[in-house]
């Protein structure tokens, strides 16, 4: 099992870790197979994601994908973020071993769940 340098870099310097006081949306998803958890908080203003933060428990890919997704979506519009796919996450990590792709899927699921909440809030 080998991970990319970028992957390891995310793991040793996770981006945007933590909870957020003034979040517009908070979603937490669990991988039912292995029990990995990802919690994502977004602050959305005027249809744009100003800040994103994450908490994660589980194997290394889950932590790295959480870090990547929180970093990636900052500055994106809700529209842009909702178009992100699992492959975008994998690419941002310079690849993931075949058996660990589910971590990227968990990141996208959690992102979509959070984005859905921001849609609900629209007037």
């Amino acid at each position, binding site marked *: 099992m080998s*991970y990319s340098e970028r992957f390891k870099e995310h793991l040793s310097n996770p981006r945007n870790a933590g909870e957020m006081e003034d979040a517009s949306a908070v979603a937490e998803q669990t991988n039912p197979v292995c*029990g990995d*958890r990802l919690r994502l908080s977004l602050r959305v203003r005027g249809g744009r994601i100003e800040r994103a933060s*994450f*908490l994660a428990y589980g*194997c290394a890919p889950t932590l790295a994908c959480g870090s990547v997704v929180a970093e990636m979506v900052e500055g994106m519009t809700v529209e842009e973020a909702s178009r992100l796919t699992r492959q975008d996450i994998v690419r941002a990590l310079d690849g993931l071993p075949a*058996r660990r792709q589910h971590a990227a899927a968990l990141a996208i699921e959690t992102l979509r769940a959070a984005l859905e909440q921001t849609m609900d809030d629209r007037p």
Partner: protein
Amino acid sequence: MRRVYLDNSATTPVDPRVVEAMMPYLLDKFGNASSVHFFGQEARAAVDRARREVAALVGARQNEIVFLSGGTEANNLAIRGVAESASEHGRHIITSSIEHSAVRGVCDALEKRGWEITRLPVYDEGIVRVEDVRAALRQDTVLITVMLANNEIGTIQPVAEIGALVREARAEGRRHLWLHTDAVQAAGRMPVDVETLGCDLLSLSAHKLNAPKGVGALFVRRSVRLVPQSLGGHQERERRAGTEAVASIVAFGTAAALALEELDARIAHLGARRDRFETGVVERISDIVFNGDRERRLPHLSNISFRFIEGEGLLINLDMQGVAVSTGSACSSGSLEPSPVIRALGRDDELARGSIRFSLGKETTYADIDYVLEVLPRAVENLRRLSPLYQKALADRACQVA
């Protein structure tokens, strides 16, 4: 970057003295030990000498040692060899719930073919109880296989007491009951003597003893009949066909002789450094659980579960700082279930997933330990800051205080 290797239960560096001893058998003394000519006889003499050295390490006779490819093959030959040879007398095997996968896998395979397997619990302390072995014994039990010391938590099993039980049963006329022990982790880290243990078969691996990978041995007491698992040659007294790996066997013999000679010094060296490590960890990191009995265990190993985090992330963080360890988390072992050994102690999934094995070697220094004590608390703290379980625990504690 500084590099600290704390994964000596996975494998050990080859001792330079061992390399020196084996080199001539890769170069000039390349003969096949089965050949009649000079080259063959030179190799034969070297294999015989190594056989005496390995036998001495475990208090066996020379002709009771079978060389083979390693611990996994030794366990396969022991268990399948006895099971097949004794099948007309019974098809029941007793084992523990914390065996190495090489024993577990063979027992699982035999179970599919109609053998009955009793897997004994190890309780909170990670040690089999002799009364459970006694209670599990049946008229059709042909084999008890319990490891001498566990590879993940280092706990030492009461094999000598089980051996006494087997002798007692034999005195009462049970002629087809055998005792096997996997001593791969134990050898070179505690005294091992087949007479004291009362075992009939005992597995050894060279690469856990500062010799190369690819060679091991099975002690087979003279009275034991085994069905060989590889056929087509007369080597190893018909018990393991195949040209002997002469240079590796020489290396194994030299490593065994050194391990025997230096055993007391190694035990003292390992224990002192392991204790300094554990004291340091307790002082610096909260919410940890030591896995396995802390008295009855090998001196080189420490297995700790760090609450709220998963082992793989910690392993990679430590690796990036030059520290090599291993984990019981499922992901890094390629399975979905976390360590069955840690689970067998009654620990929940979170603790099993957060377990890390630190295993020291005779090369480990105090400076190595101090470096690990510097980087480990930071790595744990960094991962805990990401953990929703940790954040929740902090919030719960704040509530309790308020």
